[in-house]
């Protein structure tokens, strides 16, 4: 081994130990800033947020405290996402349960959409509807608001999308 290699190793080890010491020193400070956010994502109960934020701050050690904070934060993020998805799904279910499933023909639905200023045309097989000036989600929501069970509808909002494929929903 050359002398330069040994010198580089020694300098590298020294720099790494400095970095580790710095990280170790600032870890509790970072953890203290992460924990209130983690507690906020963990629960919706304002009282419990305060409780958890304080309780988790009592984690022993420096790096362990940071790792605990990060683990609670990551699980809190997952919980929050799950909560939002669950809420959106619940809303959709609630809305759908209110629908009077009107037995409308595709022609009748096309006429209703045209009355709402949408550009509508039928698919080649006659079973579907193509809406070219509105997004699939908006048309779907519009039909739900009209208490109409959405049929198979294709929509294209741009030339690029039209070339690629129809959206099915």
């Amino acid at each position, binding site marked *: 081994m050359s002398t330069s290699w040994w010198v580089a190793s020694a300098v590298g080890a020294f720099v790494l130990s400095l970095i580790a010491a710095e990280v170790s020193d600032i870890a509790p400070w970072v953890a203290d800033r992460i924990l209130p956010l983690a507690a906020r994502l963990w629960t919706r109960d304002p009282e419990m947020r305060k409780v958890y934020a304080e*309780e988790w701050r*009592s984690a022993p050690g420096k790096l362990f405290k940071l790792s605990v904070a990060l*683990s609670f934060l990551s*699980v809190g993020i997952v919980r929050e996402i799950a909560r939002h998805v669950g809420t959106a799904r619940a809303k959709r279910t609630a809305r759908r349960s209110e629908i009077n499933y009107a037995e409308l023909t595709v022609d009748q639905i096309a006429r209703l959409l045209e009355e709402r200023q949408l550009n509508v045309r039928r698919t080649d097989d006659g079973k579907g509807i193509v809406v070219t000036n509105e997004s699939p989600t908006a048309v779907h929501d519009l039909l739900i608001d009209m208490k109409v069970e959405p049929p198979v509808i294709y929509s294209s909002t741009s030339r690029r999308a039209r070339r690629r494929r129809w959206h099915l929903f």
Partner: protein
Amino acid sequence: MTQPTLDVLEALLDAKDFELHGWAIIKTTGKSGPTVYKILERLLGQGHLTARWEEQGPDDAGPRKRFYKLTPDGKVYARTLVAERRPAAARRLGWALSLLTFGRLA
């Protein structure tokens, strides 16, 4: 009933006065913080646990710990579950005998 839940219940049954603080439960069970706190949250909601803050004197510095204790109902629940699912652990701590006696008396 998951294995981590049984670990938490066993740790509490094994503790002095059936009470431990959160980090002690994590250390005893070897489970991650979020896993243990999800279980504690559920057991608190079901009324099997009560929680209290550590009493600190004016000289005590640092954040307070929070202690979790099995309620009387929680003890019965935990003992029954551990005796059913982990007979070896129950025997080690002598609960199986007491449960058996309790069952004969009931």
